[in-house]
Structure formats: C-alpha cells, structure tokens
C-alpha cells in the first residue's frame, strides 16, 4: 500500500473517530399523542440541521411514562435527556432542583408563549419547561341536535343552560345522550374534570391552612349537579368513560355535548374519523356567575432533568421543537391544522391557522380564561386549576376520584362520597405534615 493511501486511510479513520467523539446522543421520553408522534417523524429535519446530535425516542403510555421519568429523575438515573411532562410536575420538580432552568436564544421569543401556559411552567419567573402543546377544556356540541331541541348555544354558557340543553337533546331510545363527561376514576380523569367544575361552583380543595373542604356546600352542589345531570342525560356506564371513550361516543354521534380537552376539537372535526365532523360547534366551558369557569389548563412540555449528561444538546432540541420555526415546519409538511396548539400567541394571529382550525379562537379564549395561580373563587394556598401542585396529589386525587366515580355508578351516595373524600384527604394531608 502506498504511503499516500495509508495517509488517506489514517486521515479518514481519525476523522471518523473525531466525529464519533463529538456526536452527542440524546434520549427523549414522550407520550403517544398525535403531536408528539408528528415531532418524532420530523426528527430527520432536526438532525439535518444538527448532524452532531443523535436522537433516540422512548414513547410510552402516559402512566408508565410518568412512573418511569419520576423514578429516573428522583434517583438521577440519567436515562433521559429530555422528558415530556405536564404542568403538574413542573413546579414540584423545579422546586426540588430536579429540572434545569431553560435559557433560549433571542430568536426563540419567550414572550410569544401564551401567558397562563408560561406561568404554569415557571417558578419564580424562571422557565423550567418549554410548552410543546397546550390545552384547556371547552364545550363541543352538536349544532343539529341543539337546533332540533330549539335552543341556541351562547359563546359563554352557564351550567344551568348546559343542564337544560342536555336534557332536551337526550333521546335514550335512539342512543343519543345529551351530555358526555368524564367518569373514569383518576386524578387526570374524573378528578380533573370535577375539580375544574367545582372551581366554577365556588368550591376548593383546601382552605388557606390546607384543611380539606369536601364537607362544604359548594362541593355538595357540584357533585349533586354532576351526578344528577349524568344520570338523566349521560350515557350508560359513564363511570368507566375517560377521554377516549367519550371521544368515541361523540364521534359516532351518541353525544349532544361533550366538555373536555380543547385538543379534541381537531379529532371531532376530522371527517376521516368523525361521523359528525360538519355539525360540531364550540363554546367556552360553563360557569355559575361566580367569576370562574369550569375549564382547566394543561400543557405537555419538554424539560431537561438535572441529571442529564447532554444538557446542551437537549436544550438545542427543546428550543427547536417548541419554536415558531417548528410550527412552520409542521404546517409545511402536514398542514396548519396539525400544528401543536395552545403555546404561542403568534399562531393564533396567523390567518392560515385561523382558516385551517375553526376552533382556534375558542381554544385561545379558553386557555386565556384559566388562571393556575388563582384557580378558585376563594383564596387557596396552591397553584393548579384541575390539580393541586403538591407531590401527594396524584395519590389523593385518584382516591377522591374513586369516590366520585362510585357516586356516579350509584354504589355510594353523594354525601357518603364527599364524606369519604374528606376523611381520606384529611388523613393524607395530616400524614404529609400539611395539617399540624
């Protein structure tokens, strides 16, 4: 072999080794939601811009993901460089110093992030997670059934109107139910919906001394209203229905109204999946005239654990995936209707998006009407609209949700369910040291 060839081969080998040494590999844990899967599909676009960063994806079911990333971040396992987490985890984990504060370039334009979403992901003014998509909840209803019932849905309905409309739209013989609401037990299922509803009835989880409030009149009014409404105008077996079950019912024409995540708007108006796509209208979540609506606030966000060995590459990825340029990339590849919603004000000012997503304005209005810092009529010591941002809430929320689900299923009275919720919450809060 000639000296020239040997030199060339050596140079190639050194070059390859140097590239390998410089390349960083990041592992991203995420949930199996349409927007996340779309992001996964656009990975090549990111690696084309950043050839020195290799991206590995771990997609998991939400509960498994939550367990995995919680164990990993609590033990500083370092398995993941970017984690998909919700507004519930961000303040708790940031206060534990488990998350790295995020600092992006000027071009990123942090001020473009929608106010309540940004607030929910910040602690003391520092952003700890970048919102990938945000959502609130709103009323989705069948315009044809509403018209047949001789009613007109206002943009901002009251609970009384919703109850009246639900009863008028119900036709049990033809399996059409006036209203579909979450009944499946879980802190992110029925407890989330009923907590947001309770806010609009003037109820709250705790007073300012962390004393549970399930024995108060507003909670009794909330649960009575919910159970009675569902018994009269809800589908059978509603205590087993979560988001997906209600989505299926609505898409197959069995629900007159459905109050749930704003992200569902794109599903129910998609003619490929929904039999009622051209008949869907939208309205703000209902209120009771007390100054708070029954809508929640949630954002699936990208955060970087403090134990990550590739924080710089992870930050580069998070900045790319939550940027305005990413929204344009999605629009270019999949259309404006598929751009992740609920994170940037500029998206809602974009005429292309407004045209592609008829529910855009209602989604934005819903998000803007939620206030995670002051979620209730009376003051509370916690943040979070449909949850209480304390580590104990997952367990307490699920246990309380089980009592609510039992009340809906009829195996327990509303009074007994609230008494059980009060007892178990008091016990856990005392154990947790909140109640002295």
């Amino acid at each position, binding site marked *: 072999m000639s000296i020239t060839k040997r030199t060339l081969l050596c140079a190639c080998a050194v070059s390859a080794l140097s590239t390998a040494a410089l390349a960083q590999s990041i592992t991203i844990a995420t949930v199996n939601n349409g927007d996340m899967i779309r992001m996964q599909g656009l990975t090549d676009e990111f690696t084309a811009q950043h050839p020195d960063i290799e991206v590995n994806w771990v997609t998991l079911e939400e509960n498994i993901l939550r367990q995995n990333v919680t164990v990993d971040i609590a033990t500083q396992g370092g398995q993941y460089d970017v984690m998909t987490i919700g507004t519930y985890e961000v303040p708790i984990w940031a206060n534990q110093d488990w998350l790295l504060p995020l600092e992006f370039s000027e071009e990123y334009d942090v001020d473009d992030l929608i106010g309540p979403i940004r607030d929910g992901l910040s602690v003391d003014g520092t952003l700890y997670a970048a919102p990938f998509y945000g959502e609130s909840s709103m009323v989705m209803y069948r315009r044809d059934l509403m018209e047949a019932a001789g009613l007109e849905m206002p943009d901002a309905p009251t609970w009384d109107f919703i109850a009246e409309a639900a009863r008028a739209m119900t036709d049990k013989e033809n399996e059409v139910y006036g209203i579909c609401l979450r009944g499946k037990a879980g802190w992110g299922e029925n407890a989330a919906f009923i907590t947001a509803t309770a806010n609009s009835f003037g109820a709250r989880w705790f007073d300012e001394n962390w004393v549970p409030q399930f024995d108060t009149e507003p909670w009794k009014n909330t649960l009575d209203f919910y159970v009675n409404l569902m018994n009269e105008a809800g589908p059978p077996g509603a205590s087993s229905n979560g988001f997906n079950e209600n989505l299926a019912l609505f898409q197959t024409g069995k629900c007159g109204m459905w109050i749930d*995540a704003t992200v569902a708007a794109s599903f129910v108006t998609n003619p490929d999946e929904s039999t009622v796509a051209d008949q869907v209208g939208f309205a703000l979540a209902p209120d009771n005239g007390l100054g708070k609506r029954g809508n929640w606030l949630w954002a699936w966000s990208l955060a970087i654990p403090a134990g990550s060995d590739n924080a710089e590459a992870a930050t580069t990825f998070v900045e790319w995936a939550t940027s305005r340029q990413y929204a344009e990339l999605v629009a270019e590849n999949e259309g404006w209707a598929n751009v992740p919603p609920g994170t940037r004000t500029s998206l809602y000012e974009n005429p292309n998006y407004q045209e592609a997503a008829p529910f855009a304005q209602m989604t934005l209005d819903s998000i803007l009407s939620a206030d995670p810092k002051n979620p209730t009529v009376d003051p509370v010591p916690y943040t979070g609209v449909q949850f209480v941002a304390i580590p104990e809430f997952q367990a307490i929320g699920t246990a309380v949700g089980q009592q609510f689900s039992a009340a809906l299923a009829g195996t327990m009275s509303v009074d007994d369910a609230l008494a059980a919720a009060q007892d178990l919450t008091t016990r856990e809060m005392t154990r947790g040291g909140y109640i002295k």
Partner: protein
Amino acid sequence: MARAVSSRRKIGFTILGWIVGFLIFFPILWTIIASFKTEAEAIAVPPSFINFDWTLENYITVNTRSDYPLHVMNSVVISVGSTILALCIAIPAAWAFAFSPTKRTKDVLMWMLSTKMLPAVGVLVPIYLLFRDWGLLDTRTGLVFVLCMINLPIIIWMLYTYFREIPVDILEAARMDGASLPKEVAYVLLPMAVPGIASTMLLNIILAWNEAFWTLNLTASNAAPLTAFIASYSSPEGLFWAKLSAASTLAIAPILIMGWFSQKQLVRGLTFGAVK
C-alpha cells in the same frame, strides 16, 4: 379397567372443549381482527366481525414508527438468556433439594417461594439505584440478570417436582457403577428429566417474554423489549385501538408460533407427575 365412554358423551366433551378453547382464544382473535381495521372501525358500535374494509395501514404505521426487529431481538435475548442462566443455577439446586434433602429443605423451598410474594414496586428504587451505579440501566445484561432472579424460585420448584418423580435407585445404580456427581447429573439425571426441563424452559421463556414491570422500568431505548413496543401505542388523547392491536399482534406472534410448535412438550411438562 377403563370405563367405556359413549360416543355421544365423547362428542359432547369434544364440543365443550372446542367452545372453551374458542372462548379462551377469543381475545387474541379479536385483537388480530382489530389490527386490520381503521381506528374508526375499531371503536364502532356494534362492532363488525369480518365485514369491514381490511387494511394493513396499522402494520405499516407500526413498522415505520418503531424498530420492531430491535425489540424482538431484545425480547429473545432477555427471555432466552435469563432462562438459560436460571437453569444453570436451578438444576444443581433442584438436584440437591430432591436427592439430598436435609431437615430444612422444605423451609428453604418455602422461603424461596416467599420472595415471589414481595410486590415488585417495593424494591424498584433500590434495584434502580444499583443498576444506575453498575451501569446496567437500559442494558440486556441487566435485564437478563433481574429476570433470572425473579423466575428462579419458580424454576427451582418446577425442577424439584420433576426430579422427585425420578427413582433415586437409578441414580444410586449409576454411583455404584462409578459415576461421579457431574456425570450422574449429566448422563443419568438430565436425560430422564428432559421433558420436565424442556417444559420449565418454555414456561419461563413465556414468563420472561411477557414480563412488563422490570422491562419497562429499567429500559429506555437500547434494551427495550416488546413490552415497551406495545406500551408505546396506548394514547391518553386520541384513538389507538387498531394500532395497539397491530403492535400486540406483532408482539405475540413469535411466542405464539413457538408455543404452537412446542405445545406437545408444554402439555407433557405441565402434566408430568400428575398421574402416577
């Protein structure tokens, strides 16, 4: 003397057997059928059994989104590896319990079985920390080790039961002929216990294949087996039944095929010693 069974009874039992078999198999059949539907058809009420537009769309999506061969390879390495490692430990242990018992043998066997009564989540954090410190997170080696430990009590118990069926006189005869202990085990005991060992091996491969707690918690991307592959197709917001069914069908296909070809050994092993 065997009792004569009337042909009418035979037919009755055969039909009953087929009905029970069909009922047990029905969830798997329904999963396979759903994997060929669109998401809208998969949730349709009333559901259609065969009268729908069959599509391979879900399989295409699953194969595009996930690295199926990698997950299969991880499942094979983890389940076979952990079973072989466990057998290497369990065969000598079961031999000792069966042919050289002491007055504490039964206590030791019960103690080993009692380790299965501990909820796995109770030791998740200690195991996770050990794996982190030893660099075993998201590695096949780590999972082979953990699944071996988890299934070891069952393997020892099964082998112990099989070994006890073997007449000790045969082993004594081998010893009188001058066979050393390793030769006694290798040339006399193991050939006689092959059906039992084979069924133990198959059953434990299936157990390791289906294990979903440790395989999900201790892996991320490199060593994730088919359990993680399935878990990635459940969605909190959006329809997913058809794609999840396609992922499940792909995940159970290898073990279903293996079970089909080895059902004779499996049944023989499971009923070994049931009738003397």
